């Protein structure tokens, strides 16, 4: 019991250390970046008097270490500061943008997993066959075609050409402001409000960006699944299972798959974390008000409170997903105690 508490404590400590390190690095990078955040706040044409006033108000005239100390005490009080660009509290901005990204990422991961894992298994089982080659080509395209090409192509074909998909954006114009955000997941909020038309509209707007994102994640998941599976199929226990006369399906699904499931969890967790960082290009093309765009824009303007806030959030996501994978390892893999 005490050992478990100790390990929990040391894990918690390492999480804190990670976040602290992240905040220091991001903050310092932000302050030595050759972009003056005051320009973002008051514009390039403002008079020197206004610039000086804004610089003092933002605390930028103090030494770096003092600035960081102020920031740290602020954060410890749960205050991530204000964004220069939006004038909103960073926390409330993140609460606005993150669910949009999370919705996209979650659906993309689900689809990528549902398709990618079986595809990877199939490719492994049929190693070097035509099926394997085709799957490899599909995945290769997912690795090598730039996102914006595919995203724009999808829009041109399905939206402009065939007219079967809605255009960029998260919602149709007529549904704008009709749904009160509860969870921030538009699809769930629509269901909660009982508005089926708005729900269908929200899902329709998700189809293209989710497909694009899931395709890119799928490429990675499939490749990893195939590699794990090939490895597993070489195991002696597979030979034994086959020798026992089990059907090919039983050998793969009941004997080989459980051994790779644990490794796959890590892959999925990392993919999910990657998706949650916000897919800037996809968000740009699809006019998706997500975290990626928010973060990039803040970074370009030297608006550091949002940048550090978002970095901490992303750091937290990675740490949390890693922890989750650790826990699941323990549950699923009897070798880890």
């Amino acid at each position, binding site marked *: 019991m005490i050992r478990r508490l100790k390990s929990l404590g040391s894990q918690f400590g390492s999480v804190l250390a990670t976040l602290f390190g992240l905040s220091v690095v991001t903050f310092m990078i932000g302050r030595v970046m*050759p*972009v*003056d955040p005051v*320009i*973002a706040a008051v*514009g*390039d*044409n*403002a*008079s*020197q*008097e*206004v*610039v000086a*006033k804004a610089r003092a108000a933002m605390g930028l005239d103090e030494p770096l270490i003092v600035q960081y100390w102020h920031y740290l005490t602020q954060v410890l009080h749960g205050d991530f500061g204000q*964004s*220069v*660009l*939006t*004038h*909103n509290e960073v926390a409330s*901005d993140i609460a606005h943008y993150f669910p949009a990204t999370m919705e996209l990422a979650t659906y993309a991961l689900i*689809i990528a997993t549902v*398709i990618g894992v*079986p*595809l990877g298994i199939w490719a492994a*089982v049929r190693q070097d066959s035509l099926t394997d080659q085709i799957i490899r080509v599909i995945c290769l395209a997912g690795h090598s075609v730039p996102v914006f090409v595919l995203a*724009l192509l999808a*829009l*041109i074909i*399905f939206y*402009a050409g065939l*007219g079967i998909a*809605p*255009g*960029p*954006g998260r919602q*149709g*114009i*007529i549904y*704008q*402001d009709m749904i009160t955000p509860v969870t921030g997941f538009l699809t769930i909020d629509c269901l909660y409000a009982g508005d089926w038309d708005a729900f*269908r509209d929200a*899902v*329709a707007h998700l*189809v293209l960006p*989710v*497909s694009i994102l899931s395709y890119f994640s799928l490429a990675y998941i499939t490749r990893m699944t195939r590699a794990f599976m090939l490895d597993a199929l070489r195991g002696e226990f597979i030979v034994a299972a086959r020798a026992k006369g089990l059907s090919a*399906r039983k050998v*793969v699904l009941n004997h080989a798959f459980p051994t790779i499931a644990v490794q796959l969890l890590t892959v999925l967790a990392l993919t999910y974390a990657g998706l949650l960082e916000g897919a800037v290009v996809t968000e*740009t*093309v*699809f*006019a998706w*008000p997500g975290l990626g*765009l*928010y973060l990039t824009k803040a970074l*370009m*303007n*030297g608006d550091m409170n949002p940048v550090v806030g978002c970095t901490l959030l992303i750091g937290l996501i990675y740490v949390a997903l890693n922890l989750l994978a650790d826990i699941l390892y323990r549950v699923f893999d009897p070798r880890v105690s």
Partner: protein
Amino acid sequence: MISRRNFLAASAVFPTLSYLSWTSAFAATPKNVLVVAMQLDNMTSLDPHEGFESVGAEICGNMYHKLVAPNLEDPDKVDPQIAESWTASEDGKTFTFKIRKGLKFSSGAPVTAEDCAFSLQRAVKLNKSPAFIITQFGFNADNAETAITAPDADTVVLKTENPTALGLLLYCLSANVGAIIEKKAALDHAEGDDLGNAWLRQNSAGSGEFMLKIWRASDSVVLLKNPNGDYKGNIERIIMRHIVDPSSQLLMLKQGDVDIARNLLTEQLKGLEGDDSIKLMQKSTASIMLMSLNQAVEKLQNPKVWEAFKWAVGYHAMQKNIVPMTYVVHQAIVPEGLPGAYNENPFEQDLEKAKALLAEAGYPDGFEIEIDHYSAPPYPDIAQAIQADLGKIGIKVTLLAAENRQVLTKMRARKHQVALSSWGTDYFDPNSNVDVFCINHDNSDDATTRPFCWRSHFQDDKIAKMAEDARDEPDPETRIKKYVELQKYYMNNSPFVVMMQSSVVAAMRPNVEGVRLGTLPDSHSYAGTSKA
């Protein structure tokens, strides 16, 4: 082993999901809603006395009226807006405005002289970025209430510190910082002594044609018709959507999901030529693209070198090949469309002359130089063209591309050699640009005023004198003439190579009527817009 059937069933998820989209109706936008696709990120506040970026200026321009407004057809005229008439005292220090009766704020309250005086006082007291436009007349937080007064319900009196040209004052009052807001609304929502600043960033209290419903940063802005305003058309709601990617904007416009696309680039616009389903409207705006030659760099100090740069650049070829629809050639510091602009373009590419000038300056073999430039289009292409042109006269250019703010930061630190950047005019008067390009009384690193020319260490007392003389000239016609003379002289005697002036383009569905684009962003107006 997964059977083929199972795999097919699993992969059927995709078409099933997209089936949902087939059943949604994607109709054209409703007739009473105007949907605009534009890049909405260039704004930090919708308080007209604070915001100072182009997109915010446009939105404020549609929500607030000022005492006077620039005449969009004739830049030399000013139109009455909230004021119906005005007079100047003989000494040029007292200005009296009569307020038009019957105007109402969006709340329904009448627009009074009290509101007008309060608004101008507020702009001075807040002292945010655009405040200098009116504080240059000597107003400050201490004297605001005595220098700006409303002696009765329809009169506003302004008392300036020094004799002031009426034209300059009127043009300055036509900027957004001269917007008239409802005093009661601002004070009701004040927090501490902010005069309602925090509230007005995301709300409106004006007498313009539209009022603010909601602004979601980097997402959308929704304006509603001001029920108590002058708007006569059939638009009830304007939805501006933040669509970053110009290609996406074009697709949405073609599909009819938006009525207007505002940020199409030359590559998209070229494809629209001869397309009857889309109307294009183009207007030169008050933003110039120029090279600044930093005078702290020794080889850039000789006026012959300045001239060599000016004769080396292929202005027209660049404009025609790189930015045919979004820029026009313009070489004077006051952009076309502003009063007093000088619209002749005397420089063209003459490599022999440029080479000879370089040799005269003592650089027969040229030299090496760095040019900082924005990384956003069309700057990289323009920079490469300049690099090629200057290469022909022996100047070896290294290009340093960076994010817009990064280039500005470097310029403000006076660390550039040559910078290719842009400059946008702040208010509708030649003094707006002339002031920052000409008047630099303190060229030290810790100067208290740091005009644009200070960034490149450029100081010329003769030019400064000419600029001040033109600014203070009371006779409007002579004033314009002086500005034209100044610009001609400046072209040949300054280290700034003004090359082009940008245009704003609105691509519209054919059923949209009455959109107006102005020389400054605050006069892009939806006041006369309707949809058939």
